[in-house]
């Protein structure tokens, strides 16, 4: 761990300008990811800006009937918030399938969005890693890649984004509110995280100094028909091998709209609107779900240890859509 200075910010503006002043200044919220990375010398901030006192702790309804979630609302508070449980059970379930109760009590909404990959090499400074040390190489491509991406990866990085919450937010088409150099702006969820390309060191489209202030959810339309299915190596406290956030709006016997977001398969929560559109106007059926699954995975590429994710993802998609339509989440 390197040496760093520490200051607590009281106002959003102060936090942002403090962050702008030093290149290696970093916000700390719950610290559940950042502190681990600091202990392993992966993150080496020279200055920590503690944002926990900022007035970003509220969950409020927006004028359009949606919900605004302050960046510092903890994962636990958000998952158990009555409005979230009632209108966005998908989000609630996704959060509760992640980490452990203790971690969820500390982890924040903003921090969850910006948590870093769980690639073993990224965490171990004795090994090369393009994401940690650009240009040093990607040993995961030929090494231990069971947890790695099958979609949207590049020759420079095949890491996945590990968040469960973000998979639900992607399906719900949340909007992220950011305050940065140029003031406030709204970033559609799909544009927050990026694919690795030739710049795997960048997980998101945010700029240095950008502070996430809130996440906004559009009005809930999927409360009746949604499911979060997480497939992992043990019953709890493990990152997803594959996860599926499925949400369906039904009209009569047919599907009006379907959303399918995948976790554990790419550098960002994965969606494919063309594939989702295949369900529009159709009656729910296993065949129809299979078609979507095939379409979503058609460009998938497996590596030595993660090829199984292709079949697994398809089956999980079919299962999740089935559960969403029937309104019965299995566990």
């Amino acid at each position, binding site marked *: *761990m*390197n*040496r760093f200075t520490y200051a607590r910010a009281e106002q959003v503006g102060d936090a942002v300008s403090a962050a702008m002043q030093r290149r290696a200044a970093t916000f700390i919220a719950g610290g559940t990811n950042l502190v681990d990375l600091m*202990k*392993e*010398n992966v993150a080496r901030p020279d200055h920590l800006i503690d944002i926990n006192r900022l007035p970003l702790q509220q969950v409020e309804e927006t004028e359009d009937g949606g919900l605004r979630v302050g960046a510092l609302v903890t994962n636990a508070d958000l998952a158990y918030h009555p409005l979230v449980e009632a209108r966005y059970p998908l989000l609630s379930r996704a959060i509760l399938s992640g980490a452990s109760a203790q971690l969820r009590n500390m982890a924040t909404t903003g921090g969850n969005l910006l948590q870093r990959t*769980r690639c*073993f*090499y990224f*965490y*171990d*400074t*004795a*090994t090369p890693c393009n994401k940690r040390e650009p240009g040093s190489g990607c*040993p995961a491509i*030929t*090494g*231990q890649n*069971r947890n790695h991406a099958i979609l949207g990866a590049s020759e420079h990085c095949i890491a996945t984004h590990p968040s469960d919450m973000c998979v639900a937010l992607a399906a719900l088409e949340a909007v992220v509110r950011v305050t940065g150099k140029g003031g406030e702006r709204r970033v559609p969820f799909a544009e927050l995280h990026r694919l690795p390309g030739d710049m795997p060191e960048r997980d998101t489209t945010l700029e240095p100094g950008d502070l996430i202030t809130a996440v906004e959810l559009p009005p809930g339309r999927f409360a009746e028909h949604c499911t979060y299915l997480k*497939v992992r*190596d*043990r*019953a*709890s*406290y*493990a*990152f997803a*091998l594959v996860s599926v956030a499925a949400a369906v709006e039904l009209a009569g016997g047919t599907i009006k709209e379907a959303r399918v977001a995948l976790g554990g398969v790419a550098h960002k929560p994965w969606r494919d609107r063309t594939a989702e559109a295949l369900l529009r106007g159709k009656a729910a059926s296993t065949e129809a779900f299979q078609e979507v699954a095939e379409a979503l995975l058609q460009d998938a590429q497996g590596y030595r240890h993660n090829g*199984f994710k292709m*079949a*697994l993802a398809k*089956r*999980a998609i*079919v*299962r999740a859509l089935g559960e969403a339509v029937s309104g019965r989440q299995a566990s």
Partner: protein
Amino acid sequence: MRGEATRIGDGINRVDGRAKVTGQAKYAAEFEAEGLLHGWVVSSGVAKGKIATLDTSAALAVEGVVHVLTHENRPRLAWFDKSYRDEDAPAGSPFRPLYDDAIVYSGQPVALVVATTLEIARHAASLVRVTYKTEEHETDLAARREKARKARPGKGGYEPPPKPRGNADEALAKAAVKVDAAYESPAEHHNPMEMHATTVVHEPDGALTIYDKTQGVTNTQTYVSNVFGLKPDQVRVISPFVGGAFGSGLRPQYQVFLAVMAAQVLKRSVRVTLTRQQMFTFGYRPATWQRVALGATAEGKLEAVVHEAIGETSRFEDYVEVVVNWSGLLYQCDNARYDYKVAELDVYTPLDMRAPGAVLGLYALESAMDELSYALHMDPLALRLANYTERDQNTDKPFSSKELRACYAQGAARFGWEKRLPTPRAMREGNKLVGWGMATGIWEAMQQKAAARAVLSIDGKLVVGSGTSDIGTGTYTAMTQIAASILGLPIADVTFKLGDTTLPPAPLQGGSWTVASVGTAVKAVCEAVREQVFKLAKKMKGSPLAQASLDEVIFAGGEVRLARDPAQAVSIAAAMRAGEAFTLEEETSTLPQLQEQAKYTRATHSAVFVEVKVDEDLGKVEVTRVVSAIAGGRIVSAKTARSQILGAVVWGIGMALEEETLMDHDLGRFMNHNLAEYHVPVNADVRDIEVIFVPEEDEVVNPLGAKGLGEIGIVGVAAAIANAVFHATGKRVRDLPITLDKLL
């Protein structure tokens, strides 16, 4: 209950439970000393080669850094390998930290930064720059199997495979029904909750008081004395509590070496604590390849057993464990052949981990037995019963006791085994496939030399001590219970002390022999005290016991009572007062009855029954029910005994489905070195576990008749789960762990 004596076998709460849950129990890294310095280990990032440059200048420039120890500035150390050997060392040349510039495995300590605070040491450690001249390494067992060779024996307790009997290969070729398969299991790390740590207190006279995480204080004492050229009486080792070890504390690990070295060089007190990542840089359960071939008659009588195993070891030591021998002793079979080899890799030496060897050997053997049962269209339990043996054919000796039949019967009854549908995939529940599997377990019942001291004071308080350890097994509780029962005292009046080299010596805590060994010494020493008390009680003026002999009295409620008329009694305090004895003290050392024991094979047995549910589409396996029936001799402390088995079953679930240390063979480095990625079972993975102790009497194993329970509970569990998975899915997975991708 105060006043009530506890009997051997009762289920009492852990005597140290309160201290543990209130944080009063102190572990090695929690002892303080004046001017304590903190060490932080710098680990090698490559697997093989030489240190080319080692630049400590930036680290030394940090305020608060006192010293950086490396191979270049280390003090003189012992020269001969012998000095580095410890009680659990295998044959070879033990690893010497910071000895020279050679790198022999990834994660090897290359420097120790010593500073006034932990934070400074940690920061400065990140500034140490090491470059290497790397050499080609090999860490993949699969790639080195061809080069495996016979292992050098030399490790304490290791038995090389027995000579073959009959002609197994011929019998196999001729057998009506046969199975022949290879089984693989990965490296696993012990990962106790408490990280390895040592606090060395440099006493004013130069002596060292060492608080160490260890399974044997004497082992650390001897090692430190030999390596650093100290007299044993200058080295006191203390280890009152150990936050789990599972074998990882059987050998002195490098943190104790480095802490002592720093304390010696600086003449200061020093603490070294390893990080979780560094917990993956010493011993582990070796990756192992096995082949089991079984031949049987059409009726299911075993005709041939062939069991071969290759385990990984380091370049410098031959770690050995008993993997294959069990196969010739568990079932009746006249033709048996074994082979056990090791393959040298550029890794650290493996280390005993709970039920070393047996847990692997029985995984393969009991999987193969299951495969054979399907080939024979025979119930797996019926197959075991058809080949039950009353004699150990490896040594041609009877068992000192063997209630395995009762384990099978009671376990099967409790589980409801008779309702099992024989065909795979026949049992279902919704979209889940249900599978039932079973396996047998076996482990040795051993006893070692041990010593204990007991002091009874006139106020009725008894203090018993022995330099053993309690790695969470319940030693404190079991020993307290044995002592209390012999002198008829309430638990609250008995204190047991352990983990201190000033106490009478005890063996390493391992092999499931602590109750058998230390318990026997405690029993003997308390009986000696009892005899003294009895003599005083008889001698008292007007004693109602004047005419009685020792076997006519009972000790209860702090009194010596006439058995046939308990009203006729003398209190212990009164007897001691009358005899002017303020304290009564005894020290005894007990040895196993080797001659008598040698006539028998002594073993614990188990039968494990498992139900799994498998999600057919997603491959997820849940272990919904386990019944473990144990024949472990006399149960000394019912509650801690049950805990041992429960914990072992949980670990068996992990071994079967989750645990695996993943190595990047290009880098020669273990990669999932944290508890987020190295998976062990969580609460949600653990459902119903039922433990049955079948009655078993044994007068040969030791005077307590207790066989030890530390290991037996895990043996067989992985096979029973793998067998249940096969029954559920029709898929035979022969490499552990059975992760869901293998079932898709």
